[in-house]
């Protein structure tokens, strides 16, 4: 008899071996993590954000440790879409997990061009549209902050690609549910959230902000309660599946996000601290599903909403 996998799930037409996915930008193009565990354990590999042209990233300090958190200002350093396809896709294609390509643009045209270019690339299973990266001055921030701009980018990418479309939301907004509804109406197949929260730190000796760009993105355990709340709100607001992330470090954290309504969960900063975070969470979730007496973890999805 075939062994049933209690963690198997599906999302936007993709079948995932587990709800665990990498959070974009925290796991490069998965080469490094592949030295620590079998990537087949991942429901999907979400790669580091790709832009049309290569980007060298931000000058100066890029990281600041905060209480149970991390502020980053990487500035979307990446080789650009062409080099990504020729240099990284051959390795990614050999892994036993679907590949989701995270894309960022400075203009609507760039998002459209990225969607077009990636549409027919063998091995690319879905697009995750980053409308929220707070690091790049001229970058995605503007798109994620308004329902109109967020919907426009979503529509545009939809028009230029047949691939399942995941839109990644910024938490730096007043009404996350409204943005979620706007991208759902514009054709998104799934929503991922949250991207990093805007934060900053000041050097008290020089009396200047530490980051050249003043603000950076806060991630890690410190943001988990905010992320969980937003996933809970978005689950109620839309019908499309949600990939929840933000500070997930243990299987208990992952279980909370699933109970709040997440179909899949992203592991980011936790993998940077502990490259074995994914296998550890995987094992814990499996045991939890069994203890809860469910055949599949999906049965627990959104349970926190039940009266």
């Amino acid at each position: 008899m075939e062994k049933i996998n209690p963690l198997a799930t599906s999302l936007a037409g993709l079948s995932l071996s587990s709800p665990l996915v990498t959070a974009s930008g925290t796991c490069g193009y998965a080469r490094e993590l592949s030295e620590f565990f079998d990537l087949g354990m991942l429901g999907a590999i979400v790669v580091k954000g790709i832009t049309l042209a290569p980007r060298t990233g931000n000058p100066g300090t890029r990281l600041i440790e905060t209480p149970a958190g991390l502020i980053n200002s990487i500035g979307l350093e990446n080789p650009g879409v062409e080099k990504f396809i020729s240099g990284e896709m051959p390795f990614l294609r050999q892994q036993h997990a679907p590949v989701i390509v995270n894309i960022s643009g400075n203009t609507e045209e760039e998002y459209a061009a990225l969607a077009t270019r990636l549409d027919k690339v063998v091995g690319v299973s879905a697009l995750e549209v980053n409308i929220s990266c707070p690091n790049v001055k001229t970058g995605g921030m503007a798109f994620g902050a308004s329902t109109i701009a967020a919907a426009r980018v979503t529509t545009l990418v939809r028009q230029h690609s047949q691939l399942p479309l995941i839109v990644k939301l910024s938490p730096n907004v007043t009404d996350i549910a409204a943005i979620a509804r706007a991208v759902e109406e514009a054709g998104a197949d799934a929503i991922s959230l949250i991207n990093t929260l805007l934060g900053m730190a000041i050097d008290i000796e020089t009396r200047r902000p530490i980051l050249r760009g003043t603000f950076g993105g806060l991630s890690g355990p410190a943001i988990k309660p905010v992320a969980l709340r937003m996933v809970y709100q978005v689950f109620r607001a839309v019908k499309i599946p949600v990939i929840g992330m933000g500070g997930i470090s243990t299987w208990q954290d992952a279980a909370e996000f699933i109970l709040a309504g997440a179909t899949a969960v992203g592991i980011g900063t936790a993998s940077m601290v502990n490259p074995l975070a994914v296998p550890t969470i995987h094992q814990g979730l499996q045991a939890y599903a069994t203890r809860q007496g469910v055949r599949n973890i999906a049965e627990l999805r959104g349970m926190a909403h039940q009266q």
Partner: protein
Amino acid sequence: MVEHRPHCGIAEVVENIKVAPKIWRLTLCTPEIAAAAKPGQFVNIRASSQYDPLLRRPFSLNRIDRAKGTISVLYRVVGRGTELISLFRLGEKVDLIGPLGKGFATSHPRQNSLFVAGGMGIAPFFPLAQVLSADKATATCLYGVRCADDLAEVSHLETIGVKVVTASEDGCGHYHGKVTDLLAATLCQEDFSLGFACGPHAMLSATKDLCLAAKLPLQVSLESIMACGLGLCLGCTCPKSNGEDYWHICTDGPVLWAEEVDFAWRR
């Protein structure tokens, strides 16, 4: 890309002792890391099993003992993470990853090597000196400190044949002044085949200028705040001297050829 697949696991504390008022040496039993490690590489240690402090702390390998299956790091207590590490007790289990990064390149002509160390920059030189002395190459170490309390390692380095010359502005060393002034004087007197430097940014920058002027090839071991130490996050950068893009200190370094690094950089 890292040369070896790094080991991530738990190691037992074999020793954690104070060697100077603020400087400690932590020795861990980790045969996998000891077997693979090369001088100039580092380990990334979790100071707490909780999530605060969140990030691991990187330290150069200060001892590599393959026979015993142990490695050591020599560290200065400067903040919360190193404070917690100084509390590690004998037998305690420590979560670490290593060996990480690229170490010193020792395949170049190095019959007579020169080490330039500033403060805790002394840490990686003992295992390097061991490799050199096994090949009967000679080494001189110019070692700058702020005061006598900062001195560590001198007798250990001397035991394996390194000529150590200390420099201090407070007069506690052989040479009264900055280690880079000592370097300038030394380069006028003696020819070296290869230079290695580790220490604060300004010291490395001045060392590069002096060594390049003296046509002495120089490798520098760099520091930066790091998150993963594995190349996942691209957070620990320093500019390349090509003026275009960045080195990632955790995977391209921490040891780089000085001429490839643009030291004009500062936050």
